[in-house]
């Protein structure tokens, strides 16, 4: 049986005005968790659960980093240390982390949360990590990224203390630089960013894994409401379930709408 039930919150902390992290005690009967996997969080006030990626995987703990976007994440933000919350998972395929020497991590917005989990994982394996982070406003959680990355490049749309612009800028520059070769690129962020990342990586023939986000219901592949188009399939494309076949898709699989 997969895990679904109450877990205890052992740490809760705000990282910025609207981003907080919670650390939970990992139940013994839970399956091993991979970076890029997610858990479906119950929110009492809303009908549906809320999917949240792991942002750090400890021996006996799991960390989640959550941005307040609407009522559901707002209710999660009210959780306190010692409270319990009903989660199910781990869900989804997670990142493919086959042995690499050097990887490029690309995170935009709250998409940096699963990227942090992935970085922590590679760090243990001694992989060389370069990280590109894009924020809308003031950056946060930078320490964690600096700790595991050999190099971190930060852009922000609105914070003048940092280079301004979109993450796609440093991504293009990095890939143009022939001196650096990456075994794999990993990206998570808003759909529009992933679409650009896909395009840029294709231009440079660089392999990339995209961690996608879409509204979900069951989170386990039963209801078919979370699909995106992927290239495999009889009709030139098929509708794959982000929650089960994803949320990680390879760059050359996904077809973005429009």
């Amino acid at each position: 049986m997969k895990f679904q039930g109450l877990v205890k919150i052992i740490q809760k902390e705000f990282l910025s005005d609207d981003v907080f992290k919670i650390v939970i005690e990992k139940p013994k009967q839970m399956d091993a968790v991979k970076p890029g996997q997610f858990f479906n969080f119950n929110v009492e006030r809303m009908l549906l659960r809320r999917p949240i990626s792991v942002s750090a995987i400890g021996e006996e703990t799991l960390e989640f980093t959550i941005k307040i976007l609407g009522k559901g994440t707002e209710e999660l933000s009210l959780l306190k240390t010692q409270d319990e919350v009903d989660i199910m998972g781990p869900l989804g395929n997670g990142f493919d982390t086959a042995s690499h020497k050097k990887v490029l991590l690309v995170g935009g917005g709250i998409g940096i949360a699963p990227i942090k989990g992935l970085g922590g994982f590679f760090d243990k394996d001694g992989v060389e990590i370069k990280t590109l982070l894009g924020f809308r406003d003031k950056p946060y959680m930078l320490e964690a990224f600096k700790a595991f990355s050999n190099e971190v490049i930060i852009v922000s749309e609105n914070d003048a203390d940092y280079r301004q612009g979109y993450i796609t800028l440093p991504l293009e520059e990095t890939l143009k630089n022939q001196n650096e070769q990456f075994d794999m690129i990993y990206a998570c962020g808003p759909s529009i960013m992933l679409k650009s990342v896909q395009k840029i990586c294709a231009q440079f023939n660089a392999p990339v894994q995209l961690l996608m986000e879409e509204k979900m219901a069951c989170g386990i592949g039963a209801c078919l409401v979370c699909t995106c188009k992927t290239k495999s399939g009889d009709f030139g494309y098929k509708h794959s379930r982000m929650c089960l076949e994803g949320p990680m898709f390879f760059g050359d699989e996904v077809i973005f709408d429009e």
Partner: protein
Amino acid sequence: MSSVNMSVDLNGLKLKNPITVASGTFGFGREYANYVDLNDIGAISVKGLTLEPRQGNEGIRIAETPMGMINSVGLQNPGVEVFIKEEIPFLRQFDTKIIANINGNNIEEYCKMAEILSYEDVDSLELNISCPNVKNGGLAFGTNPSVVKEVVSKVRKASRKHLIVKLSPNVTNIKEIAMIAEQEGADCISLINTLSGMVIDINKRKPVLMRGSGGLSGPAIKPVAVRMVYDVYDAVKIPILGMGGISNSMDAIEFFLAGANAIAIGTANFVNPKITKQVLEGIEVYLAEHKYNSINELVRDLNV
């Protein structure tokens, strides 16, 4: 576990307990097998099947609403042949009944599917007449009495399997439709399918779902569903499989009291994958406390 008799006989379809799962909300059972023992479920109505495989609808397929959700999956499914080859054998490993939910673009397709499935190891056919009727400008089959008459009578002739007709709630007179289904040979009525609804994204200024409207399910629709079960009970003699927003055993008991002989859980599976078992246990406790010997005694046992 309890001494109360939970088995029900839906006019030929015998279930060991009256808790089933609603089509489209439980896949083919595989996914939920990781969370709940499928042997504890009376019957599984599988994801809506079509003759050919279907890709389903494009774009966003879900929007959350106050205590409900609207979906626009568009019958994505691998087609009836794959269902027969891959899913029936999987489900047969468990002690639960299989209900094949069948969907067509036209009456011929419905009949073809009923024929094919006649020779297969399924326990019941559930005729979903909420599908858009291509011939009729896309209005659902189930909203036009004469179309209901035709499709039910033809499907009835195409197969001798136990036949459930699943009604659309988007009609003026649900009793009339139920009576026609009974008259044309349905063994059982299931209801309700989703209400037609729409959510508009006020920032993008367009409906969230690409097709505009979708099907509203979940607790929000429960009072509508209970009312329709109550009405249909008065109109037909065949048993009723009630559903619509059931989220706990109290909700389920409301449906039995309204006149359902068995119930289906839909959207609530998404919230709580173990809900079927919990509802079953909750009903058993209620029956024991209220000195019922059998679930069948609860059906429409109103104090009036």
